[in-house]
């Protein structure tokens, strides 16, 4: 349908966006690479120069580094597990004929719209606080000693907060997918005497595969960059027990003013994200084409 003229016009309309994204992607990345080989501390701008791989060695040999990598994977993996499994459960529940389905939907989706600092501070102060948080009150009620969530299990607590933010997203997408499943198929299986577990395992779950892939892809994109929640709850601590890669780079850059080491950390983060992305894109590409 396209003429030569419209093709030219199409190029012209596409190019600003492509150009901007290209610049946005390449310029900072090249600069990050450049800084990562430089001695560059924002507090001592006069001490500069090429220092080879020192920044990388600095970053990777820091005691917090491997912990940060592990914490990043635990955080992303933990939240994915909770939200996908929980999301399937809740979606199955809401998909049943119930009264007030519309309101239930709205209540369930709401946490997704809460900005991260609000979510994190509300949980930190009003639920996790060991002296007067609601959990502490509940513990007192059943005569248990209050548990210092963010002090004793910082990463687990953050996983809980982030899961609360993302569970609605997973639920909503899985629910939508579930509703497109034809009921004839389920009825046929039911008449053939398939028990609920088998109906779920052999009919519903395969039908949900695509939606689950999408949930994992999109959540991973956002979860790798989790920042606000850590900043306002634990500051990466106690010690470095809840420091992720994102947070570690932030600390180097804006708290220690070591731009060189932070840049090296940024490069490491980009490489890791790319490894994850290649796997994800491959899986998603396969699932989305079908």
């Amino acid at each position, binding site marked *: *349908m*396209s003429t030569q003229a*419209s093709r030219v*016009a*199409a190029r012209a*309309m*596409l190019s*600003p*966006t492509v150009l901007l*994204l290209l610049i946005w*992607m390449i*310029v*900072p990345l090249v*600069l990050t690479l450049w*800084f990562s080989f430089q001695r560059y501390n924002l507090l001592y701008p006069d001490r500069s120069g090429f220092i080879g791989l020192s920044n990388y060695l600095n970053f990777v040999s820091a005691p917090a580094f491997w912990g940060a990598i592990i914490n990043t994977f635990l955080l992303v993996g933990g939240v994915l597990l909770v939200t996908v499994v929980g999301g399937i459960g*809740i979606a199955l*529940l809401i998909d*049943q*004929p*119930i009264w007030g389905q519309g309101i*239930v939907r*709205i*209540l*369930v989706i*709401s*946490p997704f*719209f809460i*900005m*991260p*600092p*609000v*979510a994190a501070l*509300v949980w930190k*102060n*009003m639920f996790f606080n060991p002296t*007067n948080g*609601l959990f502490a009150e509940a513990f*007192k009620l059943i005569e248990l000693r209050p548990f210092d969530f963010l002090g004793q299990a910082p990463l687990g607590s953050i996983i809980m907060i982030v899961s609360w933010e993302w*569970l609605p997203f997973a639920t*909503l*997408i899985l629910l*939508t997918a579930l509703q*497109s499943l034809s*009921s004839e198929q*389920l009825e046929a299986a039911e008449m053939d005497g398939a028990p609920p577990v088998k109906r779920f395992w052999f009919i519903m779950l395969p039908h949900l595969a*695509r*939606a689950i892939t999408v949930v994992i892809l999109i959540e991973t994109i956002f979860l790798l960059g989790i*920042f*606000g929640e850590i900043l*306002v709850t634990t500051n990466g601590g106690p010690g470095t027990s809840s420091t992720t890669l994102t947070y570690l*780079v932030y600390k180097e*850059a*804006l708290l220690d003013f070591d731009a060189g080491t932070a840049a090296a*950390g*940024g490069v490491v983060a980009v490489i890791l*994200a*790319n490894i994850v*992305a290649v796997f994800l*894109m491959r899986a998603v*590409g396969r699932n989305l084409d079908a």
Partner: protein
Amino acid sequence: MSRAVTPARKTINTVLAWTVALILFFPILWTVLTSFKPEPVAVASPPVFLNFDWTLKNYYDVERQRDYFDYFLNSVIISLGSTVLGLVLAVPAAWSMAFVPGRRTKDLLMWMLSTKMMPAVGVLVPIYLIFRTLGLLDSRIGLTVVLMLINLPIIVWMLYTYFREIPGEILEAARMDGATLSSEIIYVLTPMALPGIASTFLLNVILAWNEAFWTINLTVTDAAPLTKFIAGFSSPQGLFYAKLSAASTMAIAPILVLGWFSQRQLVRGLTFGAVK
């Protein structure tokens, strides 16, 4: 699903579903309730639910002591600005990819999505330094541009999936009738794509409003939006639950309402049309 269920079954399911929904919603409800409590009641043990002296003092205090409205205005300007700017760029781009697809259109789309994969910390140092050099730190313009660039791939993708569903024949017919390219886009495409554009707009305002990495790291006070404002409450001297709740309620209320309106469109928007 239209399968018949017994009333008893339906009752049980309803109770279960409502319980889950209320548990998930509870932190929000609790925040809103706490925002109306006098400060001592907010930390009372055992906790007080409804029978307290409801007060608006916290809202008043948050505005008077912390200039809430300045932050609110920044949030509005930055999230609306970045979304509108993004749409201006993305509508033509998505149009051309949807209606004049080339061999590389699919690769191009995947590449755009892949720019989202780049972790923000990977470019924090240069962006921070560029902003410092250009005097863009703590400026609304700088932040608007950054948020626009972050969300641009999502805007393009969403619009693309909506445009794809518009039959090309209609555009051809318009062209036959002598419509120029610009009038084709303005008078034919845009009205048909308006629902799609509207939900793209809504979703991106929500994303920009809640963005909490760049908004916190690139601002100090002048351009600081609500994310930064709330993050300021994490310091110990800011620990007043009722005031925190009032500030939080005001920060989330507009977007929560927008979200409720757009939730039907949310799924296909956020999954780039992969799940409908």
